[in-house]
């Protein structure tokens, strides 16, 4: 397969996922009970005329396919409509929340990779020893602790008892160091659950390399351990890298659960309230944005791995017979 074809195929896959996803969400929201117009006016008395006026404003009475094709048509021209709940453009409405979530997820992705890959390497190199056991058990406990409860415990210990981290909120908007400072504890909470996944993947990828012949041969030539580990890591990197999409997906999923605990105005909380409100444009946009990010990231990583691996894109020389007879 040629490079361009590979890239095109991968991106096409993303596009198809997004279209399917948008359709699924749109239809789910369509068949769901509840009426956003009614929600807007609250519990108060309201005349049918008033309701239908609001419905008309957001085209809520149109048949399903009309609504969906209108949405697709607008989305193609990057026009995502107005939030029903807020009454102004979705992108503006979501932007501050998205910024917070991206910072949080980014930070915790970074932490997860450092911790997950680091511990994964260590436990693979110490396979069967005490260190390996400890890492294994603690990562299992990490994955098995509900993140919302863990968040509260961490908050109690680190912010309240020790006063190390801020208690809540996102700090001063625009002041990046302050914002990141506020996001560290939530990021750690997310990391605890997610890094276990990376530890597992890294460990099993590294195990293959640790016992590999080339590593033994490198040792036989007295090549420094650091260099050997680096080589092994490089060889083990493909499965680790390609799991980024999965890691991102779990991170985004888990933010919903901890945003409340840390009073973080992120996308998760916004999404859940928008879903109950049936704020279709907002739900669609958030879901597609996150889906798109996850999808594009994994596509990007796949492409990266594809180019990184010389056996795929370099045309091997004519000697293909070298295959191994015994």
């Amino acid at each position, binding site marked *: 397969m040629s490079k361009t074809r590979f890239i095109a195929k991968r991106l096409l*896959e*993303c596009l*198809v*996922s997004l279209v*399917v*996803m948008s359709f699924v*969400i749109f239809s*789910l*929201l369509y*068949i*769901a*009970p509840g009426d956003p117009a009614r929600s807007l006016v609250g519990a108060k008395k309201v005349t049918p005329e008033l309701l239908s006026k609001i419905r008309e404003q957001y085209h809520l009475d149109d048949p399903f396919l009309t609504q969906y094709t209108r949405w697709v048509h607008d989305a193609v021209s990057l026009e995502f409509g107005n939030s029903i709940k807020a009454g102004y453009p979705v992108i503006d409405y979501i932007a501050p929340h998205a910024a917070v979530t991206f910072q949080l997820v980014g930070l915790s992705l970074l932490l997860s990779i450092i911790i997950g890959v680091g511990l994964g390497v260590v436990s693979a190199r110490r396979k069967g020893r005490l260190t390996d056991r400890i890492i*294994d*058990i603690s990562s*299992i*406990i990490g*994955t*098995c*602790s*509900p*993140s*919302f*409860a863990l968040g*509260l415990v961490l908050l109690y210990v680190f912010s309240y008892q020790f006063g190390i981290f801020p208690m809540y909120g996102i700090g001063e908007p625009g002041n990046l160091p302050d914002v990141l400072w506020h996001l560290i504890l939530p990021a750690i909470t997310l990391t605890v659950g997610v890094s276990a996944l990376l530890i597992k993947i890294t460990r*099993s990828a590294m*195990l*293959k390399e640790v016992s590999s012949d080339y590593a033994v041969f490198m040792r036989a030539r007295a090549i420094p351990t650091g260099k050997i580990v680096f080589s092994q890591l490089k060889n083990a990197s493909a499965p680790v890298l390609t799991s980024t*999409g*999965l890691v991102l*997906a*779990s991170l*985004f*999923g*888990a933010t*919903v*659960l901890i945003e409340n605990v840390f009073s973080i105005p992120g996308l*998760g909380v916004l*999404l*859940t309230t928008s*879903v*109950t409100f*049936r704020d279709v444009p907002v*739900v669609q946009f958030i*879901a597609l944005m*996150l*889906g798109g990010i*996850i*999808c594009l990231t*994994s596509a990007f990583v796949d492409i990266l791995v594809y180019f990184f691996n010389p056996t795929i894109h370099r045309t091997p020389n004519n000697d293909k017979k070298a295959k191994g007879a015994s």
Partner: protein
Amino acid sequence: MESTTKDKKLKFSPAKKLELPPLRIILSVFFLLIIALWMAFPSLFAPDALSLDIHNAKLPAGSAGHLLGTDALGRDVLKLLIAGTDSAMIGPLCIAAGSLIIGLVLGSTAGWFGGFWDKIVSAYADLTLSMPSMLLAIVAAAIIGGGYWVSVLVMIILYSPFDIRLVRSAVMQQKSKPYIESTKMLNLGTVNILAKHIFPNIAMVVLVNFFLNIAYGLMSMSSLSFLGLGVGPKEADWGRQLSDGRELLSQNPAMSLSAGIIIIVTAVSINLIGSYLLERGGFDDN
């Protein structure tokens, strides 16, 4: 006796058989047995767990007759915990079983037949995997109105791609093994080969994955309960107890704490057994 290369496995396998599993595994199994008993006979261990006694509400842990205290409606927390076992475990069991069945059916046929069918199944799995699953679960559960079984169904759909991929790649791996090709040479039927010759070899991996899915299912379901998308208020349920108990944290912390601990311990036990089986099965390294 003839000796050959690679005979290492041969020499060491008999000794391993006699080894007792490590303590943590024994403890885990013991703990899960208790859980299983609670699940099977809730009314035996916790009769009338759901009956209200509003005049004895919010008793702290250690009160007379209420080892773990009572909740806001005067229900005994320990009994609730025991009675909650079945709703806490049945969902995850169904999630694991459901996604396993989907995984086995779709994964093995896709892996075995390959071609167009494989393309469709793989596309489905890839698609589902590229979605932010927990978020979708929340969206779906919230839209359809939450509820226990809706959540279970959504989780099955979201878990199945993992099983599909697992079974598919295991079957593909097995398919080209000479011993399977030999059965093809003998003109055995597809179902026969899949069921009698391939399945026994992937059973261990699948079983372990089944275990892990139960553990993750438990986590997912309690997360949904926490968001108010799980079981109703009437039923006893660990996830719900954990989040409901939060408002009683100062009056009776045992309510949240006991639920949190039991969720963690159960999930960890299942996980430990899973990874132990995986190691013993020798699948760890690949």
